[in-house]
């Protein structure tokens, strides 16, 4: 098979293709289980395999994919023909940033392959969690597990050959109940990276989940009897359960370079960021430093080599509030530098990924992390807050098409008055404009508050692609934010 793929790559090069790559996925397995109120509603396993071919010809991309490997030459020719057609409407011929030809392997850390764990063990875990969640006040309880394991072999016409074996584990608990007004309230816990955990079955730690099961039930019951979130301006203190999403939506997505260059305009939207902004835009306060760190061990945002064959990197995006970098792949950095008339980007940031063999690689977040600060623990930040609200748990999120403004709803809020936590409130929301919001960042928690949250389902692109990634985030405080609307 390897020889056949190499042969076809060489053949298309001989036909005149500038560049050819192939991603052969011999297997991608998924296993998803979901228990809802004691019923195992989802018990699904899946397996797929196939190959995706990308051809650059006359400055345009063509792509073709199939699960049928019996007709490889036709598949490669189809991708070539697609590129040929695409080249008939071309403004800015695609050029790829330089990279080394790499022969390498990568395996994500996994002690126990979840696909070798008996189904009965997974069901037992879910049943235990379901029993723990089945307490007074809880009307709906959900526990779920999702595992992914895939092998990807990447070949390109520049001489690269990379083999990756990626294992992912996602798990969450959720409870909901109804308050006196008949409004459903909910709390949830999702598995993130705690300490040096790996990403196999061993990361499904019953002790950890038991602790959080008790916590979310307790907090749900507090919300069910809480008063309404006030409608006013306050300092908001974001815990990791919402800070990850704030980072994701208003730093991660706006800094995808394909978005900045207008490649998502017909669908997901653009970005308020322009190429002129790099090196000058005061994105946030001086307390804000953000990086795209795909070298962070043991998260879905670290994958060894991207689907352009570029090694994972740790790239600073925002340094002390100033915008300095973006989420980049080989194509976009060349176009951005050319359009800007200056070298903004030294090379690919290694962020080009495809969700499956039948999708084309695009710029995706890796681990978009906010560096911990020096404002102490959560307790320290609360003690220094005169009138605030602590928020946690994503309930809804909606962002302007250029990521310029947003509205978030959270599962729970704790009011802070004169440095003390007072009341729990329900139906908490907050909204703002992106740049004023990040520039109002007034406190960044230290390493004790820093966690890595996993995102199993980031959607982007047409055809749409679901990607797994991570966010390392501390507790952060923002001032004068509108809440309760």
């Amino acid at each position, binding site marked *: 098979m390897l020889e056949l793929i190499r042969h076809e790559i060489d053949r298309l090069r001989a036909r005149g293709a500038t560049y050819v790559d192939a991603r052969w996925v011999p297997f991608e397995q998924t296993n998803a289980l979901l228990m809802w109120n004691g019923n195992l509603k989802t018990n699904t396993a899946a397996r797929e395999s196939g190959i995706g071919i990308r051809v650059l010809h006359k400055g345009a991309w063509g792509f073709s994919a199939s699960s049928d490997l019996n007709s490889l030459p036709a598949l490669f020719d189809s991708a070539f023909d697609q590129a040929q057609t*695409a080249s008939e*409407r071309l403004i800015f011929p695609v050029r790829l940033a330089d990279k080394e030809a790499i022969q390498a392997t990568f395996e994500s850390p996994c002690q126990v392959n979840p696909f070798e764990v008996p189904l009965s063990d997974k069901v037992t875990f879910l049943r235990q969690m379901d029993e723990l969640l089945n307490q007074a006040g809880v009307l709906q309880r959900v526990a779920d597990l999702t595992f992914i394991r895939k092998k990807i072999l990447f070949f390109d016409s520049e001489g690269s050959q990379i083999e990756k074996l990626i294992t992912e584990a996602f798990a969450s608990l959720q409870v909901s109940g109804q308050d006196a007004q008949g409004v459903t309230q909910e709390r949830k816990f999702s598995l993130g990276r705690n300490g040096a955990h790996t990403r196999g079955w061993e990361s499904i730690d019953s002790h950890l989940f038991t602790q959080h099961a008790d916590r979310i039930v307790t907090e749900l019951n507090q919300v069910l009897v809480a008063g309404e979130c006030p409608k006013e301006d306050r300092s908001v203190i974001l815990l990791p359960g919402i800070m990850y999403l704030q980072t994701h939506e208003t730093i991660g997505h706006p800094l995808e370079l394909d978005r900045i260059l207008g490649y998502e305009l017909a669908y997901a939207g653009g970005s308020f960021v322009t190429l002129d902004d790099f090196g000058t835009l005061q994105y946030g306060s001086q307390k804000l430093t953000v990086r795209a760190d795909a070298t962070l061990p043991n998260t879905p945002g670290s994958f060894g080599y991207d689907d352009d064959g570029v090694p994972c990197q740790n790239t600073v995006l925002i340094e002390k509030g100033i915008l300095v970098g973006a989420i980049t792949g080989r194509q976009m950095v060349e176009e951005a530098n050319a359009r800007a008339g200056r070298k903004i980007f030294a090379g690919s940031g290694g962020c080009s990924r495809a969700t499956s063999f039948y999708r*084309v690689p695009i710029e995706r977040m890796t681990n978009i992390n906010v560096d911990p600060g020096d404002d102490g623990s959560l307790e320290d930040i609360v003690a220094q807050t005169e009138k605030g609200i602590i928020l946690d748990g994503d309930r809804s999120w909606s962002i302007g098409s250029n990521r310029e403004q947003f509205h978030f709803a959270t599962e729970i809020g704790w009011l802070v008055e004169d440095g003390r936590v007072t009341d729990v409130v329900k139906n908490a929301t907050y909204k703002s404009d992106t740049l004023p919001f990040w520039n109002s960042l007034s406190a960044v928690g230290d390493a004790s508050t820093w966690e890595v949250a996993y995102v199993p389902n980031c959607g982007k692109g047409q055809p749409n692609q679901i990607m797994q990634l991570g966010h390392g985030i501390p507790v952060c405080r923002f001032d004068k934010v509108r809440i309760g609307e």
Partner: protein
Amino acid sequence: VKDKILETLTSLRTYSREKGYLASLLYHEEDSSLMRFANSAVSLNTREHLFRLSITAYADRKRATFDLVTRLDNLDEMKAGIDIAAEMVQHSQPLTYQPTVPLLGDTFVDDSSCDDTLAKLGGQDKLHFFNSMVHDLETSDLRLSGIFSSGANTVALTNTRSDHALYFQTSDAQITVVLAHANLKWEVIAEQSAQQVSDLDSQDLRRQLAFLVERYQDEPAQQLPLGRYSIVFGPAATAEMLSVLDWIGFDGGLMKRGYSFLTEDQVGQRVFSDRFTLIDDPSRPETFPFRVDLTGIPRQAYSIFQDGIFQGFVWQQDDADEFGKQPTGHTVPHKSLVLQGGHEEIASLDELAGLPRNEDILYIPFLHYMNIVNPSRGIITASSRFGALLLKKDGSLFVPYNVRLTQSLLDIFGDRVEWLSRETIAYNTSQSYGARNPTALIVPKFVKVNDLEISHSNPSY
């Protein structure tokens, strides 16, 4: 190919029966192609031809599913998949209710919605369509983005209880064309849904774009004051809100789980405007319909809201099994929702803009990134995008920066509805996540709702 698919399912059913399994077999085939435009170039030109088989095995109250991407001629792989599902179910946990494996009373084949010409459109056809549409509109400052997605979609199923099978095939296309200003960051959009090739009309798209481009080029954008507005929603906005209503409104399973703003007590009550009549009508080919649901229940026009009166929740089979309800023929990948038109004789944006008016009207064609703030109260939030206009009462119009609307669907579709246009249109809501599932709703081209609050107003794009 149809015969081959049905033969394959028959072979797999026979295999399952011989092994003593109770199983259902769901086949999905998509032949998809997508041409994507960005910055006035073809940025992506793809083709994917994928075969999927989903096998669900049952044992008493236990259930397990194995999915595979395969090939139609790979019987051995598919049989192995059946064995895996049968093995999985042994280790599953019994449900608290008995899941139904339906007895299919008849073989049902419906490929009447498949137009081969549309399904097989090539890259050159798409390129020509786009080129003719934006000719003279596109400039160095005004750049083309968009997609032309098309393909054929086949769903077929059977199970070991039945000697029959169901087969559905449809063709579809979804076209989005955006003209975006390179520096000023505004964008205008036109969209089209097609079930057959004669539905394609590049010049209609061109007219829509030309009208908006002229306004956006001539009128500098302004920030709208916060406050309450009379709003006319375009088809994309209306279809998006109806899609949310489909989810947190009249779905029986979600209602039972606490994620609906409607209750069983409200059945038979008026909850929306008496101008609001919503039906699920599989006789409309533009909606890529399922005329029989996946359990074999024949589907006919099904009233959900009649003159604002809530007719009842819809129940798919599994929820009906769990909550002791009667399934309503809604075990389908998507419904065929039709919001009936009203009496307002407005068929185009041009006509809307020219309508005499005694108040300012905000036209919002498209709601971006809609999310549900509070399902129990039906509160949604979203931003305007793509060609909003403020139609001043003095007959002038100006271009507003985007605004945010956070409001309950009970208000949006309630007594604040002033009128719906007589003319309706199929709006394509297909998502390109996972397997192809062409979906469209039929909605009035324009819906006017009064007294809605704008809670956030952008000072720029």
